[in-house]
């Protein structure tokens, strides 16, 4: 079915004005129109506008008038005219240009359909192939390549299409840190552009980006030869700053990106894409008020960008968040006071509906992490760390990427950490304490290297810290990752960034996380964790992975990979050799569990654990084994099983509650407190756990912590409020805060006047006056 008929209504209701019309590199051939375009590309904007207006006459073709309307920012009319022109006579060129209009108004799916319709008419139409590749390149790399390769290698391809293909490929290689390939492509692009007399502005911008990424920090981009060349050709070419800024964004150098985007919109105020990126970067730098200004301006210019709309909605919702600073520093939403204090100050941005409950736990864990990492990385933070929890995952996604649908749990922009709140997901979906611990390690690896640490090493250190110093210690790797390692899907260390930035499959991201963590584990075991700081120092100096590995470990990258593989085989040899047996044991255990065949569960779970003792992921054999023991009245074995599970980092909340109850029955209060405390970092919303932990802490004579737990329970509005108040009163009495204790015990008795324990406490408090 043709797509043309369906698409017309989509833009008819679009508002004015809209996105700029980019350089088309010969995709449009009308000489008069191209003459106007050339004025536009040279930055002669007033002249170009006059020129375009002169073309919008009754005698011009419908297609030309569509292009003119688009160039003048009237995308609604442009859309109508393209539709009319195609109705008169549909050509691959017209369909492709219509697709470009959709792509520039952020409607990639519709754009792709038009490119594909053009390719149905002419499967070799190069401009449509490049258009399709441009849309797909950030979604499905392999498919994008299918479109791009014929254009790059074809002999009779129009120069403009080839140039666009080369620019796209250069950009992708630059994003993948393959600078030598990027340079080759840019050289070829220069030859093509020169021969065909096509604009070279984008070539300059990519060269400027390349130069900037390889320069020392603080390099003044305005002195770049490429910037000078571009501005000489077009003094209002904002992308000469915005394109390098994009590379700062993807290498997480937010502040440098902010500076460049600012320059971009200064020289080209209607570069709405750059303005949105400017606003997003300001937001990542926690400059909320400034971010809003840019987003509002961008919305006026280009209301079709979903990132702008989503971000403005998110900014509106920030009024529902509390901003809590520890220790107290002056802080207003939108402008974090960057006071340097002796201790590492932290700022929590938590939704009002859960801030009182979460703040003590988020604060405690953040302070612990900052203390551990400050020592570990020998790095003193220069600014407060801002931690944000989003109860709605899509708000977190918008905060991170401007759009919903993000698969991440947390993200770090320098001193700002944003993550899913524990309330945003089901209890067994994630361990929020571990996520926070992971992200806070990024603060150190990013800031200690001026954001020059490669992605793989930053992720590797964060995963390593999860396993070794985090709230749930122990190496935890999903089964599918082991299978991938066994299948040899680990990447060479110098290519590991690709596993995060441009994965071949969704699974490769997780495999890369685990591989990076295991590489850090390997470094720790073979060379000592002190080498982490040497690696960070090397990255700060601008060394790439290969050079840093050589400098720190005196090994070529290939030798390093070989040593790591040896380490992996030593560590997981038993699993790799018995992988099928392990998988069989797992599936036998699962099916036996379903039919309550407990003897088989015991046998299979033990077999699985014999091969991989640290298997505490979802569906862990420990949980099934403990259940089987329990059903068969072997509760001592069940308990011992779960103690091992907990030791390895198992954190299923229900399972840990069973273990804690057993420990409490045996009066093993300290052990029970550890287990109950661990549950809070999985799910902090269980009033029964808070109450149980508070009771245990009181027995252990730790009333301050007990009070925190009892207050958390009370905030969760439990059905038994009398007892909740009574517990708070008990802790306050233990802390000799008798006036507050009395108020709480009165509140308990107000609900339940004959509550004997509370009556006793009231009498005691009355006597102690």
């Amino acid at each position: 079915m043709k797509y043309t008929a369906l698409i017309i209504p989509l833009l008819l209701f679009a508002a004015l004005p809209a996105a700029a019309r980019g350089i088309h590199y010969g995709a449009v051939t009308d000489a008069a129109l191209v003459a106007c375009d050339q004025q536009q590309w040279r930055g002669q904007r007033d002249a170009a506008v006059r020129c375009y207006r002169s073309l919008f006459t009754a005698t011009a073709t419908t297609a030309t008038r569509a292009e003119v309307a688009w160039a003048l920012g009237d995308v609604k009319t442009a859309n109508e005219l393209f539709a009319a022109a195609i109705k008169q006579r549909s050509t691959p060129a017209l369909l492709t240009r219509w697709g470009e209009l959709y792509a520039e108004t952020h409607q990639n799916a519709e754009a792709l359909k038009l490119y594909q319709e053009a390719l149905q008419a002419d499967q070799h139409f190069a401009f449509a192939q490049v258009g399709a590749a441009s849309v797909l390149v950030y979604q499905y790399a392999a498919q994008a390549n299918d479109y791009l390769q014929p254009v790059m290698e074809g002999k009779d391809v129009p120069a403009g299409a080839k140039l666009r293909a080369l620019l796209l490929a250069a950009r992708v290689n630059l994003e993948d840190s393959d600078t030598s390939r990027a340079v080759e492509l840019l050289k070829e692009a220069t030859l093509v552009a020169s021969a065909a007399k096509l604009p070279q502005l984008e070539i300059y911008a990519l060269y400027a980006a390349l130069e900037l990424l390889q320069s020392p920090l603080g390099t003044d981009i305005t002195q770049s030869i490429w910037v000078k060349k571009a501005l000489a050709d077009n003094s209002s070419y904002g992308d000469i700053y915005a394109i390098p800024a994009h590379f700062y964004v993807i290498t997480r150098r937010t502040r440098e990106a902010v500076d460049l985007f600012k320059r971009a919109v200064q020289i080209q105020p209607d570069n709405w894409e750059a303005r949105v990126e400017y606003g997003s970067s300001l937001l990542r730098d926690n400059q909320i008020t400034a971010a809003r200004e840019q987003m509002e301006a961008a919305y006026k210019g280009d209301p079709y960008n979903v990132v702008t709309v989503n971000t403005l909605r998110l900014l509106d919702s920030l009024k529902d968040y509390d901003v809590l600073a520890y220790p107290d520093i002056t802080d207003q939403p939108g402008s974090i006071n960057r006071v340097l204090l002796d201790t590492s100050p932290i700022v929590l941005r938590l939704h009002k509906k859960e801030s009182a409950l979460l703040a003590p736990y988020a604060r405690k864990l953040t302070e612990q992490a900052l203390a551990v990492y400050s020592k570990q990385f020998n790095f003193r933070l220069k600014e407060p760390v801002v931690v944000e929890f989003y109860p709605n995952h899509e708000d977190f996604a918008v905060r991170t990427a401007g759009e919903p649908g993000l698969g991440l749990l947390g993200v770090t922009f320098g001193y700002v950490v944003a993550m899913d709140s524990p309330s945003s997901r089901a209890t067994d979906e994630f361990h929020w304490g571990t996520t926070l611990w992971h992200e806070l390690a990024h603060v150190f690896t990013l800031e200690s290297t001026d954001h020059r640490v490669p992605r793989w090493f930053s992720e590797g250190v964060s995963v390593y810290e999860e396993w070794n110093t985090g709230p749930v210690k122990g190496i935890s790797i999903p089964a599918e990752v082991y299978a991938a390692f066994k299948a040899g899907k680990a990447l060479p260390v110098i290519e590991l960034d690709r596993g995060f930035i441009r994965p071949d499959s969704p699974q490769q991201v997780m495999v890369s996380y685990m591989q990076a963590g295991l590489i850090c584990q390997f470094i720790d075991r073979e060379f000592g964790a002190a080498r982490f700081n040497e690696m960070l120092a090397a990255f700060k100096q601008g060394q790439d992975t290969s050079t840093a590995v050589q400098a720190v470990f005196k090994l070529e990258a290939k030798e390093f990979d070989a040593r790591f593989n040896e380490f992996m085989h030593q560590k997981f040899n038993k699993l790799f050799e018995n992988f099928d047996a392990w998988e069989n044991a797992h599936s036998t255990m699962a099916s036996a569990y379903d039919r309550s065949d407990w003897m088989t569960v015991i046998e299979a779970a033990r077999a699985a654990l014999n091969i991989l003792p640290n298997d505490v992921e979802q569906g862990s054999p420990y949980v099934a084994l403990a259940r089987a023991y329990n059903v068969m009245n072997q509760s001592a074995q069940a308990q011992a099983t779960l103690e091992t599970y907990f030791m390895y980092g198992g954190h299923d909340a229900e399972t840990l509650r069973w273990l804690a109850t057993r420990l409490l029955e045996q009066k093993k209060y300290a052990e029970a407190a550890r287990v109950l405390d661990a549950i809070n970092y999985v799910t902090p919303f269980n009033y029964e756990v808070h109450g149980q932990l508070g009771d245990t802490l009181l027995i252990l004579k730790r009333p301050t912590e007990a009070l925190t737990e009892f207050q958390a329970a009370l905030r969760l509005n439990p059905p038994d409020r009398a007892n909740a108040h009574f517990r708070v009163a008990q802790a306050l009495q233990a802390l000799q805060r008798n006036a507050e204790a009395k108020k709480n015990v009165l509140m308990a008795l107000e609900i339940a006047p004959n509550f004997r324990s509370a009556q006793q406490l009231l009498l005691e408090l009355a006597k102690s006056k």
Partner: protein
Amino acid sequence: MLSSLAHSLLCLHHLKRNLLTLLCLSMLSMAAEAELRVVIIEGLGGEPAYQKQFDKEATAIQVASASITRAEQVSRLTGAAATRANIMAVMKQCASSLNKEDRLALYLIGHGSYDGYTYKFNLPGADITGAELVSMLNAVKADNQLIVVTGSASGALQVLLKKDSRIVVTATRNGNERNITQFGQYFADALMDANADSDKNGRISVQEALDMTARKVKDYYEAESRLATEHPQLTGLHAGVFNISELPGEHTSVTTANASLLAQREQLTGQIDELRLRKESLAEDMYLQQLEVLLLQLAELDARIDTQSGQATTEAAP
């Protein structure tokens, strides 16, 4: 009973705004806590896991009921015996044996269905319909009736069974909530859970059990990040004073204490309730001061009563 009196006054507090105080006065008639007849019906599970779950819930309710009424007053129909005919026979017996002042609690544990017109509780053989339940309950003379229906679509019964003197508790808010419910297990657990005893009188009322259950159901769906497909409902006026279980070792009913002490306690409890009614009109400090005086007197008095009746203050914090 004293606890009932306290409940009544508490209810007075709750209902003040609705100008329904007169209704609460009628609850005083329940102070004697008439005989409680309990009928537990365990419906068809369909799958072994559900049947096992229903068994567990029915057993828990049976045990809890036996804590507050004589064991012979508790009937349970389960498995092949839980037929429509047998249910009708038991209810017929209730209709003939219970008097106006007696109490009846009927528990229906199992799946239900609703096609937009007819509610059916699933049984071996023919199901029993909502209309048949109405007819059976209306035939029972006992003024104070409780029916608890734990399964899917049970909310369809709310309109059918509605009657001031009848407490109707359902797992869902209407007949359109047709998914498997979590309600039953939490309600059964609540009957012997000290945490459900919010007024610490050692007894679990229908309202207390429902409050605990509703919270657990809500927490369950939140923890699972799932849209709640059940919303427990309660209609009827006596839920706060209709006790359905008694916690072990928590007997606050005193039979051996001096009658004058008991009278003093009633008087003090009344004063406390009266003060609570005036809470909003008093400054917080003033309110707490007055409350403290009364609560201290009550605490001392309760200690004397406990001593006299030879009962230690055994109620432990849950």
